[in-house]
């Protein structure tokens, strides 16, 4: 369906329970404002080519809206890349929208940095990872702290391909992400790590769907959030294992660290399993900073604030520990360190 034909989704759907569509829409839900283009640039020899906007009917209101809003649309083809590819997405204007499609044959490491100060940014990333190809993808959200941000991602993984996906969400004041991966080929796998550092009155809603359509597929999701101030973090996950997708292995872990009395966190890790010979597990935990850990660090000379900062940093770094690609791991940790140091100086 096209955007104007779609009803506003009910809050009984987990996807829209805590950030209903009217709260993330740039203005009124029955309007589609004229969007400026998110400008994509690349630091290497690879080429970004302009791509006509897809006219395919969308099954989801956020994607249909981004399609209707237009904005920029680019495609990048990645073969065996020797060096990491850095794509910068610069958003400007009042409402800014960009569409990017990645096609991977071989192995590649890609970082996408989004920055800018528009009032509203929408980004739709799609990716196809061809058979026996491997992508390590890092997403760094460094948008202005007054920006509303809607991000949709759709990844399709073919036979024996793999995706390592890391997100660092520290920008924007109201963010809604809907990240979906389809394991379409036998032997495909995804490792996904999401780190959220929320403070002030930041609202960050991360929805992750991983669909095991075939057997012998693997997924591993870790989502860590540290919430301070009066921030609100929402982590929802939907893990499905289709009928006949035997020998699949899936796990998801959500951890929330609550740092202030007014911070809030929600965790909804859902499982739908239609195959019997599988291993699927999820866990969620929410807790304050452990007093024993604080005491330990303070007994070694740190003041309470420093001690808490060390614990929070360690907790956020830990979300990336399931990544196996060293380049991805190091870059994401570096970015996180820079962010935390800047925050400490503020």
């Amino acid at each position, binding site marked *: 369906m096209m955007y104007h034909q779609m009803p506003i989704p*009910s809050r*009984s*759907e*987990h996807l829209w329970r805590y950030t209903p569509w009217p709260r993330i829409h740039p203005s009124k839900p029955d309007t589609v404002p004229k969007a400026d283009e998110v400008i994509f640039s690349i630091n290497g020899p690879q080429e970004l080519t302009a791509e006509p906007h897809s006219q395919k009917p969308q099954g989801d209101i956020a994607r249909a809206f981004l399609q209707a809003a237009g904005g920029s649309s680019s495609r990048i083809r990645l073969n065996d890349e020797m060096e990491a590819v850095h794509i910068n997405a610069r958003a400007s204007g009042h409402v800014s929208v960009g569409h990017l499609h990645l096609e991977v044959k071989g192995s590649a490491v890609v970082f996408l940095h989004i920055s800018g100060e528009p009032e509203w940014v929408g980004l739709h990333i799609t990716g196809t990872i061809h058979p026996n190809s491997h992508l390590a993808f890092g997403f760094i959200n460094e948008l202005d702290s007054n920006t509303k941000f809607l991000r949709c991602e759709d990844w399709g993984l073919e036979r024996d391909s793999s995706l390592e996906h890391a997100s660092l969400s520290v920008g924007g004041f109201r963010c809604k992400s809907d990240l979906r991966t389809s394991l379409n080929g036998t032997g495909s796998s995804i490792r996904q790590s999401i780190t959220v550092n929320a403070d002030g009155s930041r609202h960050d809603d991360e929805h992750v769907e991983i669909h095991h359509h075939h057997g012998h597929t693997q997924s591993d999701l870790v989502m860590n959030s540290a*919430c301070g101030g009066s921030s609100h973090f929402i982590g929802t996950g939907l893990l499905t294992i289709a*009928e*006949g997708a*035997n020998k699949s292995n899936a796990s998801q872990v959500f951890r*929330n660290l*609550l*740092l*202030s*009395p*007014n*911070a*809030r*966190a*929600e*965790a*909804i*890790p*859902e*499982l*739908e*399993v*239609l*195959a*019997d*010979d*599988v*291993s*699927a*597990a*999820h*866990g*969620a*935990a*929410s*807790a*304050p900073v452990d007093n024993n850990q604080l005491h330990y660090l303070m007994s070694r000379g740190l003041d309470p604030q420093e001690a808490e900062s060390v614990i929070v940093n360690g907790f956020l770094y830990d979300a990336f520990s399931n990544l196996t690609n060293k380049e991805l791991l190091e870059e994401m940790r570096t970015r996180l360190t820079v962010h935390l140091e800047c925050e400490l100086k503020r």
Partner: protein
Amino acid sequence: MSDDAQEIIGDYKYGFHDPENSTIRFDKGLSEQVVRDISELKNEPQWMTDIRVKAYRHFVERVMPEWGNCSLLNMIDFENVTYFLRSSNKTEKSWDDVPDDIKNTFDRLGIPEAEQKWLGGVTAQYESEAVYHSIREDLEEQGVIFLDMDSGLKQYPEIVKKYFGTVIPHSDNKFSALNTAVWSGGSFLYIPKGVHVEMPVQAYFRINAKNMGQFERTLIIADEGSSVHYVEGCTAPSYSTDSLHSAVVELIAMDGAKIRYSTVQNWSSNVYNLVTKRAVAHRNATVEWVDGNIGSKLTMKYPSVLLKGEGAHAEVISVAYAGKGQHQDTGAKVHHLAPNTTSNILSKSISKGGGRSSYRGLLQVTPKSTGCRSKVVCDALILDEDSRSDTYPTMEIGNSTADLEHEASVSKVSNDQLFYLMSRGFSEEEAMGLIVNGFFEPFTRELPMEYAVELNKLLELEMEGSIG
């Protein structure tokens, strides 16, 4: 039993039924007049009639839930349900006075034997009203009130009026509105301050008529410092047309009180079991739901606890077995509304033969509730490739001092475990049966003995033919 029904259910051990011998039966369908007639027939006070009518109007206006198994829910034809049926003209006090055919049914459920042994009291719901009620004299002497809900309303209207609908208002959901409009029977239990009821208090519920809705209403109040264990079981004969069971159960545990509510439901696989169960736990009170779901076509049941007073504790242990054509949509909800409240939820489910089991839970900590702790564990076994298991947990944490954990796993029976048992001489089927019984053991050990025995037998029956 009609020939067609007999043909469908065969010799299903727990699927017997007695010829209907009802003395009052309303026409099918629901209207405001039916609601008023039920109230008039029961000679209820005006305030109850008003609540019923208000609830009926809300039921009509309220849309069906847009979540869960909507395709099955939307198949319910509310106009094809009988909303009131009275089997016996009076509520019996002595077992000898109960009509033979009704007594025969209860005999087969084992109630008299259980009562003779050590049960505190019996009130058995047969279709819409209780036909038998007894209570040990020593409990009566302590001031314990254990009546069917209709008698409770007649004899203690002031208590019923004070608490009725306070935990689950009629506007809570569509089915609580339906129940409030047409409720009939159920239990009314009041435990005075400081009284500890040592023996479990028991009630059985049955549906015996085709397209008969059963809408019992249970209200349990444990006054300060008291304790009680209430046991409710449901078994139903199998029929070829659908039945609707929509109960409302309200528990109120005052300061320092403890209520344990155990239930095993084994409705036949054509029954919609859409139940709202909720408890309020005041300061230092404990509420425990021990909940087993074996039967029904669709069960939607999420026992809840509102931890309203500081130091209150909730415990929910539930198991679900989803066989062919069944969807067990069960779970638990705990709302931590006060500081230093704690809760534990353990949920186990088995799906087999194309059945679907879903865990749907909510754990909420409000901003003022400091120092709360909770742990949720969900384990699911899938026994064949046609079956399905879902987990939909929700954690809403509004306080930074809360310490909450949730873990869930879905798997099949481990080959190592099967191999181990078979290497010790068990057949594959026996080994599977042992593993399944062991899987449910945390639940069965919390049940009174005869319930645990019945549950194990039911599981054995369900597991027959699961290998090969």
